[in-house]
């Protein structure tokens, strides 16, 4: 009997030892909120993060001091930015960050980076464009509608349904405005630029370009520029050599077309501050006067043996900023060049730096 008691004691001792050493202790970072007060102008970088991993982030670079702050949104707000930070615009001291797969657009104060509001009830938002203080358009992928929102009340107020698109094949992207008309490129399995009358919120015209126009800007002469990626080999939608298009916004007709080689992947059409020089990525970084009739023979910045992912040009001094997402699973790096193409600085940001926004 005493041996039984002894054995029970032994078992209890083992159990207690097991249980007490095995209690949980996961360390979880509760977000603390840091104070920021940034009054200077600078460059904001939207780091997309990995699709479905919710690790998008926001970085800020001060071109004067060459200093960079990463994970700004998380640090200022104590919560994550979300899944795939697609784009950002600033209006009246408020930054609007479109977080595609989080189905949200965050509005943040541009001095403190604290959230001031958010727009939800979106399908898969890509870009936001302000028509007025109380009206903005939000383009979508996987939805054949452009959403109309009221940024004052953070609510969706209506939709513009795009013709010849289903939910599944829906894709509207970047927007530029001339007077009362707004232009939007349709990218994924699309080949059109749509023209929208912002007074009536209706599509009034559409222009067919090449396969998959990726980006859209408007130069100092009110010419629209878009570059197509040409699709991919085996695509049922077609596969062709990509092109850079110059479109007269007023007449909504193609004025110039610059053809690339089949297999090239040009992207990210951008303009300088005066909107008279056009920039894009096609392995290297290319620059061209908006009045030129042929593409230059040499790039302004040569490829660094990698696929550049994002591009922007400083509106103040014409410095060129180009992002390398490296293996898309680590901090991307941004290289800063002068307008003449000399390397000035390089800095690490977040995962997949895709979009820039000048403050």
């Amino acid at each position, binding site marked *: 009997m005493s041996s039984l008691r002894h054995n029970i004691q032994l078992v209890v001792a083992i159990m207690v030892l097991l249980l*007490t050493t*095995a209690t949980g202790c996961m360390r979880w970072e509760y977000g603390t909120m840091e104070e920021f007060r940034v009054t200077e102008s600078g460059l904001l970088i939207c780091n997309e993060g990995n699709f479905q991993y919710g690790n998008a982030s926001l970085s800020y670079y001060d071109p004067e001091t060459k200093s960079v702050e990463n*994970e700004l949104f998380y640090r200022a707000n104590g919560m994550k930015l979300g899944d795939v930070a697609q784009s950002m615009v600033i209006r009246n001291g408020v930054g609007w960050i479109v977080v595609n797969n989080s189905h949200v657009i965050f509005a943040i104060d541009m001095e403190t980076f604290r959230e001031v509001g958010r727009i939800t009830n979106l399908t898969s938002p890509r870009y936001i464009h302000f028509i007025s203080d109380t009206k903005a358009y939000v383009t979508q992928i996987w939805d054949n509608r452009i959403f109309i929102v009221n940024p004052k009340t953070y609510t969706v107020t209506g939709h513009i349904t795009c013709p010849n698109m289903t939910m599944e094949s829906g894709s509207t992207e970047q927007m530029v405005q001339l007077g009362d008309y707004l232009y939007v490129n349709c990218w994924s399995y699309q080949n059109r630029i749509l023209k929208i009358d912002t007074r009536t919120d209706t599509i009034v015209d559409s222009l067919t370009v090449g396969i998959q126009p990726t980006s859209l800007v408007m130069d100092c002469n009110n010419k629209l520029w878009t570059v197509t990626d040409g699709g991919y080999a085996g695509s049922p939608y077609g596969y062709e050599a990509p092109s850079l298009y110059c479109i007269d916004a007023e007449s909504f007709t193609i004025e110039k077309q610059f053809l690339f080689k089949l297999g090239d992947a040009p992207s990210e059409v951008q303009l300088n501050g005066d909107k008279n020089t056009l920039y894009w990525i096609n392995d290297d970084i290319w620059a061209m006067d908006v009045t030129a009739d042929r593409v230059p023979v040499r790039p302004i910045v040569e490829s660094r043996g990698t696929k550049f992912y994002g591009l922007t040009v400083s509106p103040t001094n014409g410095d060129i900023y180009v992002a390398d997402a490296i293996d898309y699973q680590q901090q991307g790096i941004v290289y800063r060049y002068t307008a003449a193409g000399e390397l000035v600085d390089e800095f690490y940001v977040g995962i997949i730096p895709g979009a820039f926004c000048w403050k």
Partner: protein
Amino acid sequence: MRRLVVILALLFVVVAATAEERTVAIREVTVLGHRPMKEIGVQQTKLDSVTLKENVALSLADVLSFNSSIFVKSYGRATLSTVSFRGTSPSHTQVSWNGMKINNPMLGMTDFSMIPSYFIDDASLLAGTSSVNESGGGLGGAVKLSTRPAENRGFGLQFIQGVGSFKTFDEFLRLTYGSERWQVSTRAVYMCSANDYKYRNHDKKENIYDEEMNIVGQYFPIERNRSGAYRDLHILQEVYYNTLRGDRFSLNAWYIGSNRELAMLTTDYGEGTDFDNRQREQTLRAVLGWDHLRSNWRTGVKAGYIYSWMAYDYKRDPGNGIMTSMTRSRSNINTLYLQGDGEYHLSDKWLFTANIAAYQHFVLSRDKNIILQQGGTGIVGYDKARVELSGVVSAKYRPIERFGVALTLREEMFGNEFTPLIPALFLDGVLSKRGSVILKASVSRNYRFPTLNDRYFLPGGNPDLRPESGFTYDAELSFKVGKAERYSLSGSAAWFESYIDDWIQWLPTTKGFFSPRNVKRVHSYGVNLKANLTVDITKDWKLALDGTFAWTPSINIGEKISAGDQSVGKQLPYVPRLTSNVVGRLSYRSWAFLYKWCYYSTRYTMSSNDISLSGTLPPYFMSNISLEKSFDFRWADLSLKGTINNLFNEEYLSVLARPMPGINFELFLSIRPKW
């Protein structure tokens, strides 16, 4: 919380001490001494039926988390769970069921959350070189799953009903019939759950606005797992016939019907009711086998078929109440399988084996419906067939009882490409009969072909991908001591090192889609410790403890992808350096108490191992317990079991933005009538 557990433990002991019922058999101790020629130098972890059948609600992914040092990456409860050996990727784990490879030929990996542990009678984990005996392509290792006859006589029936947290219902039914020559079994598992567990969302905050839409307050919301319900049905039919003159025939057919929602991310601000994100699967796997046994040779033939239909739908209600497709993807896989194998014992000292397996895959993948430029609709996808052949011969030689050596040569063909010869060399020797101290060592080269999606997926498939290649060597020292009906203690320490070249990784392109490339060179190495203790404390009290510990650095040693690359020399993302688990079983007569514990160290989410705010997943411990009581009535055997998962209500993540459930409970009633 600790105090509560101690009280619970004490309570159990007290209750157990006062109970007087029939003794429950605990884990059988395998008698050491006999070392099969077939397993010379092979390092494997075998999971016995006590482990596999511990809980009807568990998938094989759950079982492996707590009973092996294999790494299970789980995207949530009843959600995609992949397993990987020693810091490799899930597609480096080859999985076979009754001899037939069941890795998805499109993706290369296997979803272990779709394998109910109640359907598996034997499971072996073969790490590194040891996998070459079973299949090629196991750069990490192989998981060998099989069923076997119940060996019952007459009719048998078992029914288990489970009811648990989050509106979870698990049902299991098994019907068996056995005679001298025939063994017939039908098993069915039906699992369904709303799976709407609560968790505190640390990734987002809810805002409180004033009338002018100014934010006046914020808080981390307590949310439910949104859109995570599931409903899985599995049916397994087995027929075995033994001629009793050396021929055995078998038929195994396993049907899966699964309908699972894909839970929303923690960072999703969409309304759960506005979206429908769902994955459905219908799969049939069937294997017909014939084994012909003679005194010194054996031959066998197997033929099989796999049909798999998988559907992924992402829908949204545009406001009219009708869920409309945003993504509609469908894939059909038809696989034919034929295998022949033979063994020949030349003498007590020599064994020769040969095996050839052929698979013919037909894959139709339709991923997107689009409107074409010229009008009309088109489908983005691919339609491909591929033949895969794998042949292996081996010679095993044991000149003296204490020493054995084996050489295995494998050759594989995928489509019209051949791998170079895959050689594997195994050694084993008994260092000391006292304590059964055995040293095993092995070395091999291995290759893995790109999957069909790697090559052909639209957009992005890369037909120019090279096969991944690996080189592995490992050694293991094991011992076993014991005293019959008193105690048994065994343990092993293994060291391994492997190099994988041309590691395939899907990277985004500038055109907005992903494409696979041969990018990395990976060096993984480490130590694996295992221990097992069983003690018959008294005639009534029995204790069994199993533990594993693994240290597995898995380092990217490739060239920099570009000048800014900071990933060289760093641990691969989502691979923990340290994992450990302990399972303790304590039984007293008809009572059984089980404690399961596992630990994962920090996992990096970035290849550069940044300790940024979302760059790491915190380490966690997980503890599950269960208490079972068996009743032996004249008309039936009954058992009642209660389980508590996540005992300490840990908030933990296995993958970023995918919350895991807190403490949860399930109660099981098992009935086995006596006819």
